[in-house]
Every structure is written in structure tokens, then in C-alpha cells.
């Protein structure tokens, strides 16, 4: 299985080569990046069926040892397919999209670094290795979001992304530590061999691990960084913030749940909380998306809500449904993002949907692919989204939890804001000079879009490409029979979402609805801003003041000043220069000596 090593070494080699050698030749670095990712895609195809585990020892200390190794099974190899597939398409797209960018070499270098760390997460054989590449992925997303670092907003967004991920990693590490002390091992295979008993410590550990996934997959409180991450170039958003990186959280949770065993997991209390967090996130994100005016922000919030779906599925102890939705969502969300990238590129980097319109006539192919993506996202029957969303609804119904209604509500909202986007941006007439002279983008951009359409159309029908562990056969059928009550509900949700969008937004030039609560993202950012300002900066200033004046000033300074004071006191009071005082001192001396010698 040396082939698997190539998956790992290739992107790293290209990242190093680009960074240190090809810095001066951007075009060459772009080509190298793309070729390497395509090669990785090919290798991913070859190792699809294999089942092996290999690696080398990183740290070994007595009974504690951590090794960097891969576990190749259906779950990880198919996930690799998604990662390398979308990666190569994004690379091709970026060749055109970033043509006139000055720092193209650095961009492709960072992309390769991202591919390397993503491979690390997908193939990792133990939790510590996952954590290592978890942070490396965080670093590469920091570098990519902050690609145009001249802009303060990009720098801030990058910092925000890294710190929110860091908060997630804080929980993740505690989870790993607890799991390690409960089971004594961090290796997935050893965990699978003897799964731990369901104790409350295990449920806390699982929740803490989920905290890590929350940071990476941008769930409820830690989702603030994803919309700001749109500061980065659009291909980056497509690759990282739609398909792969954010999915890493769900993938890791699925891996942990499968390893520990769904029967033990279902008894844990914290899993219920995970499901509800997923549900709430999807609801919140969907509500926020209805009022956004930036095309990339809308897609970002839709990613958030779809991630909420996946986490809900995992929370409902049905990781297969979650992974299936992840699989289909990766393709059509990448399609949507690259489509929006093409639109933005054509409209001279203008991202406001109210400046777009009438693109169907000017950019037919891009618009059609975009519409197809929307259909898939809004779960129109026979599209990829429909099947995966169905599986999640089934999972919710099996658990009999109220999340089913939340899921349906979110489905309606998704349809509403996606078709709002379609009516405003694609259909209708051009509302702004930018969209008037928008013309079809170059072939290099259209090819990935078309490929993505084909793949996302066919994805649900090739079930063995779905990243699921070997041992569980796919029980949900590919073609749902219409008699099922749930199908009716989901179609109803679609209609419920479509009609208001049609009425409100067809042919409009101004947004009829104005709900500031949603547009300002429930003011969560402002709340976080205050928390940070008060909880950290002001506190830091106070602590610094205390440290400066209390510890440094009073205690240390105090000691020195009191010593000095004592010295002065002696000098001025005792050494007066007057003979009488000296004589008086003599007298006291005599009296004391007499007392001591004679009486004491």
C-alpha cells in the first residue's frame, strides 16, 4: 500500500516546492498544484477497494505511543475521492479565476498545504494524528482566507477563523485526553477492538470531541467565522468552506461514532444534545440566509444549515445518513460556489445580488449549472439532495424526535432563499452596469461546472462511492417509493418555500422584506464582540494594571522602598552629628549591657 503514501507525500511535496522553489514563477506553480491534485485523484481511485493500515511511530514513551498512520477503508477512501475530486476541479477553476492575481504562487502553495492536511485528517489512524492535521487544516484555512492580507477585513477574518477553530480544538483536545484515559488508547482500530462502557465520563468525552467538530464544522455558537471566511477567494470558499474542511468535523464524528459503536453511543446523554445543536444551527442559518444580499454569504449560510443537517443526522445516531448527505452536498455545494465564483468574476467582482440579474441570457451555461445546483440543494425529487435529505428525515423519524419538524422547516426555508437568489440574480433583467456587460466565462471555468453537474446528478445512484464503512450495507433504497409519507412532506416543504419566493422576488429590484434581525445575523457577532471586548481585552487591561502596580509596584517595589526608608530613618535620626545624642546612645548602651550582664 505504498500507493497510499503518495496521497500523503504528493501535496506536501508540491506545497514545499511551490513555497521555496517556484515562488518566482506563478504559472508553473499553478500547473504543479493542479497536476499533483489530479494525480492524487487517480491514486484515490486505485486504493478505493483496499483495506489496510500502515504508519510510522511518532512518539513512543513507555506505554504511551502516538504514531502517524493511515487507515484505508471504504469510509476514508471514498472521502478521499471527494476531497481530491473537488480539489482538482477547484484547482482547474482557480487557474482561470486567479489569473491576474499577484500572489498566485503563494495561493497554490497554500492550496497544496490544505490538500496535504485534509488528506491527513481523512486517512488518520488515531485521534492525536487527527488533532495534528486538524490544526494544520486550520492553519491553511487561515492562510487562504487571509490571502489578500492587504485588506484589513481579510486579515481579521483569517484571525477570526483560526481563533474560533482554536476554541473548538480546545474542546477536542480535552475530549481526546478523556477518551485516552478512559480507554487507554487513541488508536481507532484499538478503540474498535474493545469499545468502552457507556459511562457519564464517556458521554462528556464524546461531547467534548463534538466541541472540536463544532469549531471546524461551524455549528451554533462557533459558526461566526464561516460567513466572514468568504473574504478569501471564491475557489477557496468552494473547496474549503463548502465541501471538504467543514465536512471534516462530521467525518471525524462519524468515524468516532462508528469506532465506539452506535449501540454504546445511543445510550449516551450528550448525543441528544449534539442532534439539537445541529438542528438549531440549521434553523438559525436558514433564517439568516433569507435576508443576505451577498451571493457568497447566502451560500455560506446555506452550507451552515446543511452542516446542521449532517450533525443532526450524526446526533440521531445515524452517521450513515449524515455521511450520505455530506457526500451529495459536497458536490452540488461546490458546484454552486464555483458557479457564484464565475458570476462574480463575470460581474467584475461585484457580489451584491441586487446588482445582478438577467444573467440567464448573458451567461447561459453558468446560469443553468447554477439552477441545477439549486434544484439539488432544495431537494427536488430525483436530484442528489432529495435522496440524502430523505435519509436524514428517515433518521429523524426513526428516533421520533421533534427534529423532524425542524428539518422540514429548514427545507422550506432553504427552498425560499435559494429561489430568492435565483429570481433576483439569475432571472429578471440586469439591474446594474456590472451585470449588463457580463459575458460567458472562459472554458477553463465552465469545464469544472459541467463536470460537477454531471457528478452531482449521478452521485446518489453510485452507492458504492458513498463514504460508508464496509460493515454497514446501505439499507435505504436508491429510488424512494412514493407511498412513503415523508416524501409527501418534503415535497410539501419544497412547495411551501417556492411559492413565497416566486411571489415576493420575481422581477423585483428592491428587497421587499426587511428583517434586520436576520440580516444582522441575530446580532451574534456583536454579542461575541462584546464578550471578547469585556471578557478579554478589558479584563486583560485590568490584569495588566494589577500586575504592573500590585505585584510589581506594591510587593516588589514596596520591599525595596521600605528598605530604603529604613536606611534613611537610621541615617537622619541616629547620626545627628550632635555629641549629646551620641552620649545619650552611650548611656542607653551602658544601661542595656548592665541589664543583660547582671540581671538577664
Amino acid at each position, binding site marked *: 500500500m505504498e500507493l497510499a503514501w503518495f496521497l500523503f507525500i504528493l501535496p506536501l511535496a508540491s506545497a514545499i516546492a511551490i513555497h521555496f522553489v517556484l515562488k518566482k514563477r506563478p504559472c508553473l506553480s499553478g500547473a504543479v498544484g493542479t497536476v499533483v491534485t489530479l494525480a492524487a485523484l487517480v491514486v484515490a481511485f486505485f486504493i478505493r477497494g483496499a483495506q489496510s493500515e500502515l504508519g510510522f*511511530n*511518532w*512518539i*513512543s*514513551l*513507555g*506505554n*504511551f505511543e*502516538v504514531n502517524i498512520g493511515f487507515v484505508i477503508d471504504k469510509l476514508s477512501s471514498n472521502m478521499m475521492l471527494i476531497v481530491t475530486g473537488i480539489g482538482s476541479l477547484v484547482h482547474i477553476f482557480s487557474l482561470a479565476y486567479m489569473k491576474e492575481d499577484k500572489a498566485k504562487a503563494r495561493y497554490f502553495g497554500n492550496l497544496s498545504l490544505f490538500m496535504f492536511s485534509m488528506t491527513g485528517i481523512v486517512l488518520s489512524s488515531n485521534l*492525536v494524528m487527527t*488533532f*495534528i*492535521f486538524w*490544526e*494544520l487544516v486550520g*492553519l491553511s484555512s487561515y492562510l487562504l482566507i*487571509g490571502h489578500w*492580507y*492587504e485588506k*484589513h477585513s*481579510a*486579515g*481579521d477574518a*483569517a*484571525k477570526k477563523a*483560526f*481563533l474560533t477553530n*482554536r*476554541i473548538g*480544538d*480546545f474542546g477536542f*483536545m*480535552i475530549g481526546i*485526553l*478523556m477518551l*485516552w*484515559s*478512559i480507554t487507554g488508547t487513541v488508536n481507532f482500530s484499538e478503540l474498535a477492538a474493545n469499545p468502552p462502557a457507556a*459511562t457519564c*465520563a*464517556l458521554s462528556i468525552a464524546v461531547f467534548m470531541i463534538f466541541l472540536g467538530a463544532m469549531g471546524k464544522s461551524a455549528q451554533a455558537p462557533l459558526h461566526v467565522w464561516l460567513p466572514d471566511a468568504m473574504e478569501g477567494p471564491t475557489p477557496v470558499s468552494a473547496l474549503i468552506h463548502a465541501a471538504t474542511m467543514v465536512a471534516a468535523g462530521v467525518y471525524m464524528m462519524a468515524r468516532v461514532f462508528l469506532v465506539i459503536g452506535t449501540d454504546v453511543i445511543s445510550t449516551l446523554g450528550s448525543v441528544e444534545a449534539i442532534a439539537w445543536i445541529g438542528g438549531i444551527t440549521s434553523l438559525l442559518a436558514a433564517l439568516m440566509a433569507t435576508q443576505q444580499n451577498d451571493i457568497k454569504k447566502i451560500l455560506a449560510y446555506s452550507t451552515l444549515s446543511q452542516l446542521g443537517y449532517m450533525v443532526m443526522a450524526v446526533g440521531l445516531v445515524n452517521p450513515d445518513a449524515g455521511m450520505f448527505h455530506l457526500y451529495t452536498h459536497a458536490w452540488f455545494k461546490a458546484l454552486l460556489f464555483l458557479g457564484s465564483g464565475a458570476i462574480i468574476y463575470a460581474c467584475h467582482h461585484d457580489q451584491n445580488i441586487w446588482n445582478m440579474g438577467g444573467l440567464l441570457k448573458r451567461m447561459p451555461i453558468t446560469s443553468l449549472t447554477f439552477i441545477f445546483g439549486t434544484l439539488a440543494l432544495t431537494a427536488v425529487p430525483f436530484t442528489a439532495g432529495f435522496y440524502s435529505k430523505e435519509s436524514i428525515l428517515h433518521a429523524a423519524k426513526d428516533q421520533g424526535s421533534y427534529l423532524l419538524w425542524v428539518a422540514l422547516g429548514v427545507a422550506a426555508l432553504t427552498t425560499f432563499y435559494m429561489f430568492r437568489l435565483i429570481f433576483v440574480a439569475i432571472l429578471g433583467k440586469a439591474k446594474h452596469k456590472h451585470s449588463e456587460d457580463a459575458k460567458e466565462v472562459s472554458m477553463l471555468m465552465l469545464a469544472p461546472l459541467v463536470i460537477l453537474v454531471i457528478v452531482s446528478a449521478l452521485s446518489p445512484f453510485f452507492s458504492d462511492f458513498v463514504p460508508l464503512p464496509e460493515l454497514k450495507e446501505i439499507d435505504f433504497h436508491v429510488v424512494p417509493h412514493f407511498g412513503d409519507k415523508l416524501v409527501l412532506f418534503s415535497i410539501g416543504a419544497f412547495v411551501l418555500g417556492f411559492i413565497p419566493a416566486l411571489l415576493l422576488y420575481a422581477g423585483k429590484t428592491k428587497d421587499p422584506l426587511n428583517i434586520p434581525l436576520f440580516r444582522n445575523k441575530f446580532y451574534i457577532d456583536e454579542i461575541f464582540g462584546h464578550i471578547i471586548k469585556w471578557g*478579554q*481585552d478589558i*479584563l*486583560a*487591561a485590568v*490584569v*495588566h494594571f494589577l*500586575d504592573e502596580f500590585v*505585584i*510589581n509596584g506594591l*510587593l*516588589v517595589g514596596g520591599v*525595596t522602598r521600605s528598605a530604603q526608608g529604613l536606611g534613611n530613618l537610621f541615617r537622619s535620626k541616629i547620626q545627628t552629628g550632635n555629641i549629646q545624642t551620641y552620649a545619650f546612645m552611650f548611656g542607653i548602651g551602658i544601661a542595656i549591657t548592665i541589664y543583660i550582664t547582671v540581671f538577664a
Partner: protein
Amino acid sequence: MILLLVTIPLLAAFAILFGAPSRLTAILSALMTLVLAIVAAIAFGSAESASAFAEGQWEFKQLAIQASNFSINLHFGLTGISTIMMLLTAIVTLAAVLSGKAPEGHKNLWYSASLFIAAGAMGAFISKDLFFFYAFHELALIPTFLMIGMLGRGDRKHIAWKATIYLAAGSIVLLAGLVWLASIAGTYEISQLKSGVAAYYASNNSASACVLCGITGMLIFGYGTLVSLFPFHSWAAPAYASAPAPVAMLHAGVLKKFGLYGLIITAVNVIPHAVLEKWVLLLVVLLLCNIIWVGLVTINQKRIDLMLGNSSVMHMGYIFLAIAAVMAFPENDIAIPAAVLLMFAHGISIAMSFSLTDVIERNAETLEFNQLGGIAKTAPKLCFLFGLVGMASIGLPGLANFAGEVMVFFSGFNGWDSSKPFGPVQWGTVIALWGVVISAVYMLRAIKNTFHGELIESAREMKDISLMEQIPALLLGGVLLVVGVYPNILLQFLN
């Protein structure tokens, strides 16, 4: 042969004082020491057992003082931990001598003081005798004072005085503890301390318990002051901020580790567990203050060098966490290697960051955050290197600090029985983990303020890092990467 490790820097320092070409001699001697250190480490690594290693020429014993019931002798030799510390000293010395530009009139002082500090640190780490272990450390105190006092920046005289008096006070408390320890153990030989103390502890149990408790207290507070444990940390940050580059690198990188190294070999490995148990809670509270309190202070800093000084104080908290872990759970075989690895990693990363800060100050003439901005455009290499060390210090995987920190956290949870609730060390580990977020906050803010954003006018003509300045940074960065990717290269010395 091992004697050369200490004599080369000393002779070079004296040669410089008597007129030898200062920079050349300093670099040559640092190089020779590094080569010798690597050879010694390889010899130590390959030797099958410590005794076999001792027969070789890597052992030097010379009687210094023969008292009635004990003898003090100049005894140099290598143990697992001291090999790593020796490598750290050699590497940082070479980097320190290479970085920084000596002001015109003071070349001799600049290089001889650096070499004296290096020799002091090297001597302290490889000496196996308690007396010389302490004496060599004191050798490094005066050159530090001279360098900060004369060649430092900012309010240097006051800071130099404060730092030196603070360290001297700490050393005195430490000396008292060490002499008391040696007297009850009946020997000054570090290796025999454990048996001596055990015998003493066994003899009269009740009295000896509180005596040992007193000794441990003295050692903790003595070493604590040298290592800027929480209440005694106010000397560290200003001293490193205003010290010239080599001294800041050597002191923050190497000399600070003397305190921790000492705490491990004279307290943790020597004093019986029952006594150490009592100090765990206090130590955990202090180190958490170290991490959270000083972490918040670091966030509030307005200058890069002060921020780095405070961050080095904060990182001491993690190493103390490992020491507290082993004090609480003696069979904890991860803690000591974790502490040593983190000491090595932190030493290298803080040295590299001070070297780069010196470059920033020379090129941009300022270190204030509000006067810096967008340097990355005109100084991409400097931005890359500072980014590398910034990421290293906040514990990014692939770099040495992360390996150390992860193992420290694992040692914190080692020995935790999952049925019982968290013990003090476990809570300490959890809160220390939040320190990782705090360190990410201040480091990223620093990187964003200095490198990202629009280019400010003063940085427009700022030239990038020159080749000569790059060498120490690349050397240290390389070491960080090698140890980060494959930490077993160091851990082999420990088991």
C-alpha cells in the same frame, strides 16, 4: 573531552577580553561547542548503558573540596535530560552569537558576555555535582546584568538592577534549600541524593517529613523565582524586552530552563512522593496564574518584545504543569520527557523570536504595534520566519512546541481514574488548554498588526531580512521543524 564543552566558551570569552577579534572568535567557539555537543549526544545515545558511557572519555571528576563527611568535586557527565539541555545550550549559543549587531564601542563586552552566559549555562547543565551546578548558574548572572544595564534599550538601568537583585534573591533561597538538602542527604553528588534522602526519610519519619517539606518549599520558591513562577514573574518580561538580542535569547531560551532542570533533578527525582504530594495543589494554582494571569497581561501588551517576554513567562506554566503531574502521580513516565521536550522546544522558539524581533527593530526602528503594519509587503521573508516562530510558539503541529505541549497535556491526564472526578492536575490541564487559546489570540494579533493590513509609511522603505540575519533564524527554525516532525530524535535519550 566533556570538559571542553565548558572550557571552549570560557577561553573564547577571555580571549575576546584580551583583544582577540570578537565576532570571529565567538562564532568559532560556538560552532566548536555545537559540534562537540552533537558528538557527545551521539556517543551518549549509542552507548548501551550509562555505566558504559561513563567509562568513556565523557566523564570528568576532579576533587575540589574535601570536608569531613562529604566531598565536593568538579564532576561533569551526561544524563538523559542533561544531554538534551546541552544540545539546547549549544544551538542557542550559536544562534545568539550570530544574531544581533554589536554597537560600535562595545563589541568585546557584547560577545564575551554572551559566551560567559553560555559557558555558565553549559556548565550548570552538565555538572553532576550540586555545588558546581549552582555555581555555574551564578556565573551567568553578572554578564546578564552588565549587558542589560549597558547595552539594553528602554529604561535599562532600573530593569537591569531589578532583574539582577530579583534573581540573586531567588538564588539565595535556592542555595539555602540546596545546602540543606545536601546536608541531610550527606552528599553533594546529584546521583546519590535520592538514596541519601530516602535513608534520611526512613530514619525518623515524623521530623524528616516536615524538614523535607521545608526543603521542597525552598526549592520550589527558589527555582520559581529563577523561572518566573507566578508571584515572582515581574522581573522577566521587562528584562527580556530591554536586553540585547543575544542575552535575551540565551537567558529566556537557556538559563530559564536551569530552574526547571534543577527542579526536576533535585526535587522531583529526589524527594519522596509523600512530601511532594502536599505541594501539588499550590503548584497547580501558581502555574494556572502563570498561564491565565500572565496570558491576559500578554494580550494587553503594546510592544512585540514585551509580548514575547510575557509569552515566555506564560509558557513556563505548561512545563510546571508537567512537573506537577509527576509530583501528583509518580508512575507518570510521560511527564518528565514531556517537560524536557517542551523546555527544549520553548528554548529554541523563544530564541528565534527574539532574534527576529531584533531584526524588526533594526529595520523598522520601532516595536510598537500601533506604529507597525503591513511589513509583509516589503519584508516577505521576515514575515514568513516570524509567522513560522509565531505558529510554533502557539503550538502548531509539525513544530517542536506542539509535540511537547501535547505530551504535557497527556501527562496531565495520565493516572486519572475516569470513575473519580477530576483531580487538581486534571483541572489544571483543562484550564492550561484554555491558555493555548489565549496564546493564539495574542500571537495572531501580533502577526496581524505587524504584517497584515495596509503598509504604513515608515515601513515603506523597510528592507527585508538580510542573509546574515537569516542564518540564526533558519538554524533554529530547522531545529524546530526536525524535532516537531520527528520528536523521537530527542526522546531516545530519555528512555
